[in-house]
Structure formats: structure tokens, C-alpha cells
């Protein structure tokens, strides 16, 4: 445990060296929320009924806003750093360390997520809370959300780690990351809630792990489920994916190490 704490410290230090990334994240999230909120407000304005897929306007605004914030917190740059290490060859150093590489990466990524949550997510949230009417969640909602958000962090980390390992196969990591960001955001429900997607598309989204990153936590927060069994079901699926992705990352890491050794002669 103590070994990994030093990785957490190093991750935080690296983050604070690039303070401008906070600004970038804030502008990105603010813009993305703005584009979507304006779009949906126009939709509500053009409709007779004030409900859309079970959401009224303040609830949908809250959803869109928090979806961006969750996405921001999950963006811990693990994909970028891992692929960078692979391409520069620095990954060799990690092989001789007496720690598990995926765990060390998680330890380094966690403070990044938490710092982003405090320094970027909260200001963006406050900004929009002043500008737009939002829905206040219930205490149960908040409690369920906290558990769910923690699991979403693990899922997001697993996805990022796997994408980072793509550096072993291709040199265009930028392209891989554009593909990942797009697919994840779309099927996580970060752009459009799964409840508003047409049937087949929603079905695809439900069998993918990404819905556990945004749609799951926000359904729990906003009370978008039928009774407690349904809520427990959302959490169980998340847990399953968190475990599965961690296992997959471990296997991929082992395979990648073997490949490095072969290349190293």
C-alpha cells in the first residue's frame, strides 16, 4: 500500500506542473455542456409536453451537466501516459519495479481524478447552477451515486489502460484516442441519455461497459429506476464490468510484457 502511495504523490506532482490542463478541461466541459443544453432547450421549447424520455427540462439539464463532469473526472490521462511510455521505451523501467504496473497506474491516476473533481468540476457545476434551473437530487440518490461513481472510475480506468496499451501496436495514438473518446462518450450516454436513444441503439449501449460510466450513475442520482432491485441491478452490472475490465487489463499487460521482451532480444 505504501509503495503505491508514492505513485499517487508522483501523479499529483506531475499534474500540478501542468496547471494549464485545468483551464483546458474547464473550457472543454463548459463548451460541451453549453452546446448540448442549448440544443435540448430548443427541443423542449418546440414540444407540447414538458417531458422527454421521462425527463423534464431541469432534470435533463442536470443530466447533461453532470454527464460532462463525470467524463471530466474519468479523464485521468492514463491512456496518454501509458502509450507515451510505450513509444518512448520508458516502459522498460516499469518492468523492473517490484510493483504491479496497472495498480501503480491506478494509484497515479486517482489523485488526478480527484483534483479535477475539486478544481474543475465544482466551478463548472457552480457556474451552470447560477445560469440554469437544475434539479436537486434526493439523499438516497446522492448515496447511490457516490457508490456508482466510484465504480465508474474503475471502469473508466480499465478502458483508458487498455487504450494506452494500444501503443504497443500502433504509432497513431492520437487517432486511437479520438475513436475511444467518441465511442465511449456516445455509448456512455454522455451526449444523449440512453433513455432518449432509439430502441436498437439503446440495446447496444446497454450491453457495452460504457453505460456504467455515465448513464448508470446518473440514473441512480436522478431516481430513474424502478424500485430498489433495479437500482441494485445497475450497481451489480457496473461491478461486473469493473472486475471484467480489470482482469482484461491484467491479461493484456502480461501479453504486452512478453512482447516487449521479445523486441528487446
Amino acid at each position, binding site marked *: 500500500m505504501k509503495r503505491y502511495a508514492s505513485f499517487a504523490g508522483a501523479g499529483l506532482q506531475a499534474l500540478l506542473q501542468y496547471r*494549464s*490542463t485545468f*483551464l*483546458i478541461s474547464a*473550457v*472543454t466541459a463548459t*463548451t*460541451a455542456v*453549453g*452546446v448540448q443544453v*442549448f*440544443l*435540448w*432547450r*430548443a*427541443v423542449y421549447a*418546440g*414540444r407540447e409536453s414538458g417531458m*422527454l424520455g421521462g425527463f423534464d427540462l431541469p432534470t435533463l439539464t442536470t443530466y447533461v451537466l453532470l454527464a460532462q463532469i463525470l467524463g471530466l473526472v474519468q479523464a485521468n490521462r492514463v491512456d496518454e501516459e501509458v502509450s507515451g511510455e510505450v513509444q518512448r521505451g520508458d516502459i522498460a523501467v516499469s518492468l523492473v519495479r517490484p510493483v504491479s504496473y496497472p495498480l501503480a497506474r491506478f494509484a497515479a491516476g486517482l489523485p488526478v481524478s480527484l483534483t479535477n473533481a475539486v478544481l474543475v468540476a465544482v466551478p463548472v457545476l457552480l457556474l451552470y447552477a447560477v445560469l440554469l434551473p437544475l434539479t436537486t437530487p434526493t439523499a438516497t440518490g446522492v448515496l447511490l451515486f457516490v457508490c456508482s461513481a466510484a465504480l465508474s472510475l474503475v471502469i473508466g480506468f480499465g478502458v483508458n489502460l487498455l487504450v494506452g496499451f494500444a501503443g504497443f501496436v*500502433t*504509432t*497513431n495514438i*492520437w*487517432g*486511437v*484516442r*479520438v*475513436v475511444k473518446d*467518441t*465511442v465511449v*462518450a*456516445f455509448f456512455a450516454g454522455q*451526449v*444523449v441519455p440512453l433513455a*432518449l*436513444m*432509439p430502441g436498437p*441503439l439503446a440495446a447496444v449501449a446497454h450491453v457495452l461497459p460504457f453505460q456504467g460510466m455515465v448513464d448508470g450513475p446518473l440514473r441512480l442520482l436522478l431516481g430513474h429506476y424502478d424500485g430498489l432491485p433495479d437500482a441494485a441491478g445497475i450497481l451489480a452490472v457496473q461491478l461486473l464490468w469493473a472486475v471484467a475490465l480489470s482482469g482484461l487489463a491484467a491479461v493484456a499487460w502480461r501479453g504486452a510484457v512478453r512482447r516487449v521482451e521479445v523486441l528487446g532480444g
Partner: protein
Amino acid sequence: MRALTVVTRYARLTWHLSAVSVHRLTEYRMDFLLGAGGLLLRVVCQVAVIGMVFRQVPEIAGWRYHEVLFLLGFSLLPRGLDRMFTDQLWVMARKLVQNGEFFRYLIRPVHPLFSLLSERFLYPDGFGELLTGAALTWYAAAHLELGLGTGALLLAPLLVLCGTLILASIKTLFASLAFWTTNSFPALYAANQLGDFSGYPLDLYHPSLRWLLTWLLPYAFTAYVPATYLLFGRTAMLPWLFVVTAGLVTLALAVWHRGVDRYEMTGS
């Protein structure tokens, strides 16, 4: 006459260097597919979002489905072109001034801005945007049975060119700040990010945001103004498009030159 010689020389250089880039593109086929495919996928998702919006209502802020698609498609044309030719500005904003490598653009017998950009001419990732943009514009126009007159058809490429120049100028302007701050990447990124608003009808937004996107960071002229002209025949803003383009290009070049002068001083 001399001006013509200069133009011909730069055109030939651009042609030659683009050919070199195409060669590189065939070498790294997988990389090209990933980059262009990634941007293509992004457009597909944007179209899907618009589709889902229009499942709920027949029109938003006075725009119908295919009109919004046309606007989105059109917005990608200058964006794709800009990405193909000015991507090196990102690298400059991030590190070329900071690590001192920028000097190598000053010792070549061409304009330093051209010299910088030429390192990444025909940057392949832009193809994805350009091709989907063209396909989307074409599809939407066919569906709307958009009967454009000869004048509009002749003007359209010019509108795309102006949009490209506006995007390139905004990028040059913010990248040039690196001459003063050594790293202007955050500022450039923030300015670029606001361009995301321009793929949707500006009528959606609060007037203050609309004003900002028209007069401060004039992204409105890269898509909204030309698209409303082609779709609805609105011409009120069209003359301003050329004024803004000319003004912005002049401003960007002026700031760039001041920055280069500054860089030379510190470099000696």
C-alpha cells in the same frame, strides 16, 4: 508581375510538399486510417445526436432536420481544409518556441509561416472531416432539393475558402502568443474549442454568445453565415464575411510578424 512570380513559386512548393506528404501517408496506412476514421466516427455520432433530437420535434429554432445536416456538413469543409494545412501550429504553440527549435523556420528562403506549415502539409487526419463534410452537404442538399443558381454555386467554393482562412487566422493568432508566453497551447485549445458551437444553428444560443461567435471569435462566418445564405438566401451578413476574413488575416499576420521579430531578438 513580381507578385505573380511569388504566387507561382509558393503554389509549386505547396504542390511538391503535398506530394511528399501523400507518400508518407501511404507508408503509414494504419495511422492514416485511424486518424481519418476517428474524425469520421465523430461526425457519425454528431449526426446521430441530431437524428435523436429530430425524433422528438419536427424543427428546432426554425431549422428542419436536413437543414441542420447541411449546416453541420458545410462547417466541416473549412475545418477539414484547415486541419490538412495548418496542423503544425499546434506543435508550435505547444513546444517549438519553448524548446528553441523554431529558429529553423527563419533560415529557409521562404516565408517563416509557410516554412512552418509546410512540415505537415496535407495532414491526413483532415481527410476524414473533409470527405464526410462533402458527403453530408451533398446528401442534405439533394434531400432539400436545393436549387442553387449559378452565382451561388460559383460563390460556394469562395465561402469555404474564406472559412478556412478565418479558422487558420484564429489559429495563427493564438499560436503566435507563444512568442510572448513560450507555450500558448491552452489559449489555442480554448479558442479552438469554442468552434464546436459553430456546427449548430446559432439561433439556438443566447444573443451574447451569438455576438461573441460573430464578432469576437468569428466562427459564425465559417458555417452559419454561408449556410444561411445557401439555404435561405440570407445575404445581410454576406458582405461582412469578406471584410472579417480580410481583417482577420491581416491581424493574424501582423501579430505573427511582431512575434517573429521578438523571437529573433531573444535568440541572438
